[in-house]
């Protein structure tokens, strides 16, 4: 009795001490299990099911075809009762441009699934869709995804697009792909017993090969990854059907292949990148971008190269930091990082284009990190701990046992080792959590998109009968209507405030509400262009000198590419 009481007390105490809550089940019209991965065919079916289940919210748009003819889908999610999707700031969310980084697709699909089923059931997400629209592209590289699922791979292959390409510049095309010699669906490793070999098998765990110190003989030689020398040039697996890294194929800071491996023929040279590029250019309302990759647990922003660091003004980096730092709390074991500084140099990357070429707040999340294997207890697991995980947590499923094989060139060898599931992709039983946390982060990011409104205004009539109207235009959200990079590099179009209903004699800006004099906007005072837009959580104060009769109605209209148009009507009366 007392024991039960104690437990009840503990539970109660825990309830008070911690804000952790369960959620009530929110039934959806489409049920999808998030503890597994799906082929592109299956993803396409899910897309159609969701589109059919929520026809008022989702329109499924084919934006092009992959090289192998798969449809490139974008799911547009919008609440039409508050206007067409183009009229609202939109967030672009894509994944899986690297075919092997498969959970990126599930992260996008989960987001689409959750956002649609929450509509009308969850107040915050329902309201979010009143203000903003979303463009979801689950897989930017369906050919690579399909190849990764159906072909034999390492965790790292099937990253690129697939087209004839002479990877090793020897005049032959795709002449020496990897070969799944043991037919297990994975490309693993080849080992040969060799008296002079420099490797030995660990006596405690023969699955582990260790290099021996100089002077010792280990008995095994490492022959590289599974394959044969198909073209007789002495090298193995040096030219497969993969070609371009499509995340190096975007226009900003694009560099030729001798500077950036995988860059492709020219910016947007692949039909996939081309379709995405054209879609994004045709939707200047996109005000936020998230692109999912794996792995490493990172929230990455540009620039991709050190020499572009100066493009990121302090105002912009403060905003990036605010969003990313919040994200780092929502995504345990993720760190906020800058691509060139904390990862590596990237020329022609996707988010580098959207951020530096289009002026859109953009992040790349690298899903999954080994820090999540043991979570807080071990953030950097050693080899022994990785093996423990493989054996005890996933029951050996990420390892292909060594098998003897008669190799045409090397004779009797062993083939085996960690298989294509052995790194990078989230263990399936942890997938839903990873998807949800990232989904939540993008919803937070989306909620930062600009929201413009007219604030207070003041009418004053001068002794000579002119009206002086001072009016505030506010942006309550974190992201400005025009990033500093957009203003300084003239990306996109400036914001525009127009006045109708009275003759505007002069107009200008005030720095603070109490300024007595305004700046001089010059010609066309009824049409004020604001290259610098409205800052995040900020405002612009504009003043108009008008000629009109008392009671005249004057319409002020604010247009921004990355905010909804707003209008207010002010009557010319003395305040």
């Amino acid at each position, binding site marked *: 009795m007392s024991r039960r009481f104690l437990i009840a007390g503990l539970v109660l105490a825990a309830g008070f001490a911690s804000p952790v809550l369960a959620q009530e089940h929110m039934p959806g019209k489409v049920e999808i299990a998030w503890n597994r991965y799906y082929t592109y065919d299956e993803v396409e079916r899910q897309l159609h099911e969701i589109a059919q289940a929520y026809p008022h919210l989702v329109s499924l748009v084919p934006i092009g075809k992959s090289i192998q003819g798969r449809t490139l889908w974008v799911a547009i999610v919008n609440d039409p009762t508050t206007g067409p999707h183009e009229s609202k700031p939109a967030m672009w969310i894509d994944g899986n441009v690297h075919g092997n980084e498969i959970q990126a697709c599930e992260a996008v699909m989960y987001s689409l699934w959750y956002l649609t089923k929450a509509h009308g059931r969850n107040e915050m997400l329902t309201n979010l869709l009143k203000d903003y629209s979303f463009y979801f592209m689950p897989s930017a590289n369906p050919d690579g995804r399909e190849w990764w699922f159906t072909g034999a791979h390492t965790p790292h292959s099937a990253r690129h697009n697939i087209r004839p390409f002479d990877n090793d510049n020897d005049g032959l095309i795709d002449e020496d792909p990897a070969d799944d010699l043991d037919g297990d669906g994975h490309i693993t490793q080849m080992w040969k017993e060799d008296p002079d070999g420099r490797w030995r098998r660990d006596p405690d765990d023969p699955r582990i090969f260790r290099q021996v110190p100089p002077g010792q003989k280990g008995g095994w030689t490492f022959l590289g990854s599974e394959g044969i020398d198909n073209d007789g040039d002495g090298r193995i697996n040096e030219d497969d059907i993969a070609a371009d890294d499509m995340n190096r194929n975007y226009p900003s800071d694009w560099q030729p292949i001798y*500077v950036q491996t995988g860059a492709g023929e*020219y910016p947007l040279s692949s039909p996939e990148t081309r379709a995405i590029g054209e879609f994004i250019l045709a939707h200047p309302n996109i005000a936020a971008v998230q692109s999912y990759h794996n792995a490493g647990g990172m929230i990455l922003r540009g620039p991709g190269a050190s020499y572009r660091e100066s493009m990121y003004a302090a105002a912009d980096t403060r905003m990036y930091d605010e969003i990313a730092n919040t994200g780092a709390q929502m995504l345990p074991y993720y760190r906020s990082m800058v691509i060139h500084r904390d990862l590596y140099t990237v020329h022609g990357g996707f988010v580098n284009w959207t951020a530096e070429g289009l002026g859109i707040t953009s992040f790349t999340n690298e899903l999954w990190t080994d820090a999540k294997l043991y979570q807080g207890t071990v953030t950097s697991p050693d080899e022994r701990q990785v093996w423990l995980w493989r054996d005890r947590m996933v029951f050996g499923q990420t390892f292909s046992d060594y098998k003897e094989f008669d190799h045409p060139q090397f004779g009797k060898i062993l083939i085996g080792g960690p298989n294509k599931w052995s790194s990078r992709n989230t263990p399936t039983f942890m997938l839903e959590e990873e998807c949800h946390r990232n989904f939540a982060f993008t919803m937070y990011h989306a909620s930062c998109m600009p929201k413009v409104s007219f604030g207070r205004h003041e009418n004053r009539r001068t002794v000579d009968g002119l009206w002086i109207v001072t009016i505030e235009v506010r942006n309550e959200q974190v992201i400005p209507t025009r990033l500093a990079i957009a203003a300084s590099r003239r990306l996109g179009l400036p914001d525009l405030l127009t006045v109708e209903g009275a003759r505007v004699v002069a107009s200008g800006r005030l720095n603070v509400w109490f300024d007595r004099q305004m700046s001089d906007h010059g010609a066309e005072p009824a049409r004020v262009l604001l*290259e610098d837009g409205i800052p995040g959580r900020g405002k612009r104060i504009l003043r108009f000198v008008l000629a009109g009769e008392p009671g005249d109605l004057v319409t002020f209209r604010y247009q921004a590419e990355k905010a909804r148009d707003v209008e207010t009507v002010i009557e010319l009366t003395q305040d």
Partner: protein
Amino acid sequence: MAHNGIWSLTLGVCCGLVFGQPPLVSDSPPIPGEVRVIGRSGEGRNIGLVVLSTEGDPDAKPGIVIVAGLDGRHTIGVEVALGVARRLVEQHAELLRTHTVYVLANANPDAVARWRAGGPRIDWGGTLTPRDDDRDRRIDEDPPTDVNGDGHITMMRVRLPSPMHGLTLTHVIDTDDPRLMRAPDANKGEHATHAVLVEGFDADGDGRIAEDGPGGVDLDRNFPYLWPEAAADAGAYPLCEPESRAIADWLIERQNVVAVIVYGPKDTIVRVPAAGRMDVTGRVPLGIEEDDRATYDALSEAFKEVTRQQSAPAGDNAGSLQGWAYAHMGLLSFSTPVWVRPDQLRREGGDRGEGSGAVPAQAPTPQPRDERAELIAQGATPQVAEFLTAAPERRRAMAMELLSMPAEEREAMQAEFLKMPTEIQSRVMQEIQRMRPEGSVGSNNGALFFSQPATGRPARRGGAAQPGPAPGASAPGVTANTSEEGKWLAYSDERGEGFVEWQPFVHPTLGKVEIGGFIPGFRLNPPEMELDRLVDEQTAVVAMLLSRMARPVADCVLVEPLGEGVWRIGVRVINAGELPTRLSIGVKARRRAPMRLRMDIEVDRILSGSPRRLIQRLAKGERHDSQWIVRGAPGSRVTVLLETAEYGTTVLDIPLEPRADQGGER
């Protein structure tokens, strides 16, 4: 502009099919050659090329491409390209047996058609893709216009305009020749008295004059090489225009192409681009690779010999087809305006006095090769050194970059600037003074600050779009007769056309103005009578290039019996041509496969030697020796192939028997 009549007839005839226009005269012979349509322009015209080849598969022989008309104003390029095509067939059929010439005479048919349509011309040769030049959310709403109805859209100069127009004073009237406008010389206490802007109205009533005309994208800034990112006239992204994309796609596909010649406003052959300077990545050449300099210098000499050109207009090569073909595709490429002002030609003992009499020929300007390094050694930052040694276009671009920098960064640069030696500071200020008419750039206690041009248009379309004066030429207007402007004026006086005298006019917005200046296109296109000579010259240039092409020759030089059916085989490949088989940049670019020497027998019969040898490049006369040890019955044969992307395939059928000649000195 008289030349347009007859020439456009010719063009219409021979390229009716290619350019989607009906032939104007039905009985003129077309160019004998296969016509290929490689794409369609923005307005739906065909982009076509003529394939000149008199024997064999044209795509299996080393090829040269001639591209003209990227800039629609440069009609002379289009005409000369067509003339060269015809003349090559008439006079050089022999060279076309072993080589192919692809002539893409009209790369921008929409712009060329617009230029030829007659009526006052806007000084713009790019595409018509809508562009909001002045970023006011209205597109193409205020074009340059022939305000005074004299048939030309020239310039307006306004003396001391009312401040209500918001114009910046940038120019003075030159004292030597009052037709010329130049920057004031601050050292002489001069102050700008005039604003100069393109002829036009304020069609949209926004208070600015002709600030947003039709178009578009400058195709020669739309290629991926050093693409001027975020410059509106360079396009939304590289190759966003159907014209540039069609050319790029075709050239990427055409593996046998060795060289690309561009006829357009900018020269890169009389003045060979600087060697060994790299972009910000340290890998992409700003000009050419150091190892390609000798090849280019030799070609430049030959080109100058043929054309007598001694100087030619340089220009910013960023985003250009020529730069892309070289630095990204790894091909031999150069551009030429085809025609230069007579005083830019070498004089030959007065035998061709026409045109060169009035203005003395200018000595070629020596290009200091490592000026930049010297400047850095003297304490200039790399940026400043680059600024001082850059071509005017690039300089302007750098100034514009500075303009768009965040304030704190600009301040940091200024602080750095003030730490540099005063000589360097004053040189920078001098250069900035020179740029004044283009961008209204001023000085303030040594700190740099920049303001926008008086209007959107004159700087871009009136000035910068035209080739700027060559570095080393005197600053505009120091004395009227030696500045580039002055030389053009002297030439127009001699030619009797090309410059509209300033005429007073009462402008509806600006009030009293004067309208006049150079007629658009005048500085690009010669009088009609020059066409024949130019076609001759450029035909000779192409023939010269074809006759110098690399010629890799493979021979079996050794069959040595080692006994027991084992043989040592030696094969030698020699480049018997003048040019290297591939430029140094070609090796770097990896866009074409290297030459392959392949021992085509079962791999296990090869005891020594790789079955495939890659030969990256062979300079003139350079030899590459390969040996294999193979097994084979005496009297049987082995096959060795030399396979190349550009020079076809050579098959050596080698009998395994001792030879008298074993490859020594022959």
